[in-house]
């Protein structure tokens, strides 16, 4: 039966084959280690009266360069579950994509709405399997048949269940806001403004976070994805003359014409 499966790689787990080589190369200084796109980030979540609110900034960095000024860090997992991701952008996107796919299959088989703990367990098992090499720190939130839930997941696979949570490089700035202003039973407007405040605190006080605020409100039977809910960093001073310069502005040295 397996003759149709030739060419499929062996199952599961991180292949450590190249780690010794990478170590040797970086020690010798021959090849600088590749810089990957990180989402030095502020991501937050809190539980309010009727459900869960997730928030994230929108800056993606590669080293000290901002490589995406408006990226999406709140990922879809299920119609009633969303997940914010901090860490290596590719890792967070890949892992949330895979688990979202597994949840969809699970929904077909059971005929029921997905539960947040299911997403949680699938994510943490996956991250543990890779022993922390998949650098994804996640804030998972959603509302299911058992009520609203909010969890944080660390790259090595441990999890926390909390009423309010922050992750990423801006987590301390955001947590300071939550710790002083959070209380149980917030309304939707109060919750959204508190999340915005926490993300803005990360945007302005942390170099790895910036640009705009994305919000996702999940309640029983409904969700609102507020992309770019707040834009606290608008582009000022746009020249009214435009940015194209007439020919010969710079002065030409040689002119060579080629037949077309």
């Amino acid at each position: 039966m397996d003759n149709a499966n030739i060419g499929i790689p062996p199952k599961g787990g991180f292949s450590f084959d190249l780690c010794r080589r990478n170590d040797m190369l970086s020690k010798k200084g021959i090849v600088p280690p590749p810089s990957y796109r990180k989402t030095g980030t502020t991501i937050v979540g809190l539980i309010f009266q009727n459900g869960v609110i997730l928030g994230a900034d929108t800056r993606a960095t590669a080293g000290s360069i901002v490589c995406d000024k408006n990226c999406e860090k709140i990922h879809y997992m299920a119609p009633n579950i969303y997940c914010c991701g901090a860490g290596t952008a590719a890792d967070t996107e890949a892992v949330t994509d895979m688990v979202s796919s597994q949840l969809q299959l699970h929904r077909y088989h059971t005929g029921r709405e997905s539960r947040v703990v299911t997403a949680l367990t699938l994510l943490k098992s996956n991250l543990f399997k890779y022993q922390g090499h998949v650098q994804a720190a996640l804030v998972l939130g959603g509302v299911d048949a058992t009520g609203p839930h909010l969890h944080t997941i660390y790259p090595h696979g441990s999890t926390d269940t909390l009423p309010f949570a922050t992750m990423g490089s801006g987590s301390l700035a955001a947590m300071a806001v939550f710790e002083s202003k959070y209380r149980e039973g917030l309304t939707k407007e109060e919750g959204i403004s508190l999340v915005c405040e926490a993300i803005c605190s990360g945007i302005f006080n942390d170099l790895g976070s910036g640009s705009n605020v994305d919000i996702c409100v999940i309640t029983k039977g409904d969700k609102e994805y507020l992309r770019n809910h707040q834009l606290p960093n608008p582009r000022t001073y746009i020249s009214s003359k435009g940015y194209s310069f007439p020919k010969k502005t710079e002065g030409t040295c040689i002119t060579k014409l080629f037949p077309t």
Partner: protein
Amino acid sequence: MGDSQYSFSLTTFSPSGKLVQIEHALTAVGSGQTSLGIKASNGVVIATEKKLPSILVDESSVHKIQSLTPNIGVVYSGMGPDFRVLVRKSRKQAEQYHRLYKEPIPVTQLVRETAAVMQEFTQSGGVRPFGVSLLVAGYDDKGPQLYQVDPSGSYFSWKASAMGKNVSNAKTFLEKRYVEEMELDDAVHTAILTLKEGFEGQISEKNIEIGIIGEKKEFRQVALFIFPLCVSA
């Protein structure tokens, strides 16, 4: 002829060029409950009779029509457990396609992959072919489509088709009744009438299943409320 000597091993051709196990699989399909499908100009309808072995069986727990993706549904004639396995595999393949290409799987692709699975089981050691024929109904960018997949792994696109016990009568009835550019509501009505033709006993919304997919591209199971509207006294 000498066919019976070759009928036990799946992977051996008989002298007449047939794979006898597949013929037997088709017989298993032919003794299953009738199911049919009709492609309309703005949708597809599939239906099947749901005769349960006893009145004590909880009919709401039996699902003969399943959805593979939000816009593709399937019904079968033959062995229920084999159908369940195929549905599981097809759903997984549809999800994998979506993960790879970030687009919903086209109906033809899903049919092809399901047929490939069924063919695998006709050319491997120690397995037997699936004892089901499937009718796959879907609506994608190419419009409404209806495919039949056989245990051998061959598939055909149909305007209207039937399978199972009453197949010859049902097909004759469909040939007479089918009209090009038929609309979905007429198709549902025709499907119920065709089922009624060969039905033993009283037909009701509890012993049939109907699945439809319209221009909204959402596959739904509708027997319970559509049946009373369609059937005239």
